[in-house]
């Protein structure tokens, strides 16, 4: 191991860094890691191919080609999913309603391989004790559960205040 090889390693590492920076920038902020499980996998692929390049087990050109091919397919995928609802449904998950108007949708839960305990745990994390408080809970494509509260269970909003105010006393404007 001579000093030249170390210098080359440093050079290759900086090159790989800036090249990936470019790729991530071109792919856009939502496409690497942020939204779906598959975006995370793409991030993992991009992170995983580089050791051979940096340590010089494959040539820079081979590495660049592999990264570009992954990036191009991911771009094509996200573009097609944007343009066509069919492809979006095909390649990405679609939302599943798991609680509707206080009723747990057992069929949908089963379809998503969730059990009630997991659902209750998610609801508790959102500060919801009783599914009756929920107007709609949805398992979203990114794997998180969104909770829309029933009207009566929502915290008081400013608009409610003016309604209540108009019943009792007129607000000074």
């Amino acid at each position: 191991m001579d000093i030249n090889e170390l210098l080359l390693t440093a050079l290759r590492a900086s090159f790989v860094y800036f090249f990936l920076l470019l790729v991530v920038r071109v792919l856009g902020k939502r496409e690497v890691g942020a939204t779906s499980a598959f975006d995370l996998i793409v991030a993992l692929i991009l992170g995983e191919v580089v050791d051979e390049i940096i340590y010089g087990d494959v040539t820079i050109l081979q590495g660049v080609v592999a990264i570009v091919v992954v990036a191009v397919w991911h771009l094509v995928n996200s573009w097609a999913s944007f343009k066509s609802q069919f492809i979006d449904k095909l390649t990405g998950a679609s939302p599943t309603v798991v609680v509707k108007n206080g009723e747990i949708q057992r069929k949908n839960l089963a379809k998503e391989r969730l059990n009630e305990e997991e659902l209750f745990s998610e609801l508790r994390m959102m500060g919801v004790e009783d599914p009756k408080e929920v107007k709609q809970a949805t398992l979203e494509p990114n794997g998180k559960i969104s909770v829309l509260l029933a009207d009566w269970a929502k915290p008081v909003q400013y608009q409610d205040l003016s309604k209540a105010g108009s019943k009792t006393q007129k607000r000074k404007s």
Partner: protein
Amino acid sequence: MELDLTGIIFRVSLMYLYALTLIRISGKQSIGQLSSMDLVVTLIIGDLFDDVFWAEVPLAQGLVGFGTVILTHMLVTCLSSRSKLTDRLVNSPARVLIQDGKLVQENLQHEWMRQETLQFELRLQGEEHPRGVQEARLEPEGQTSVIKAASNKPVQKKDLRLFR
């Protein structure tokens, strides 16, 4: 190839301490605020290690490769926090997706974001309809931020005139 266990223990420990030191120096407190590039760099780091563990590359080469990536990333993030131009080059700017209850189609188009996607981001923030939103942005880290419309906000103390 015969791998002796003491060698593995030595290399793994050394790389662990080296990584710990460099990460501490780089000043990343947590992984809560990860940009796409932070994530990719994190993955690269993990990727660079195993080759050293199994002695597929010499220790020195591993130290240099890993150090270079971390230092370059430090340099770039440091520059982009100081210079507008670098920030503009490295990060894509926050884009407004909803303004005063209306979708900004041009920006949705620009980000290749379907309305369904925006809808689920809103639901995750407890908002059912763009109507109730004053402003939603796609932030540089890739998350969607939602500012509720004034009438839709929970009551604040100032509304009850507890504060003036």
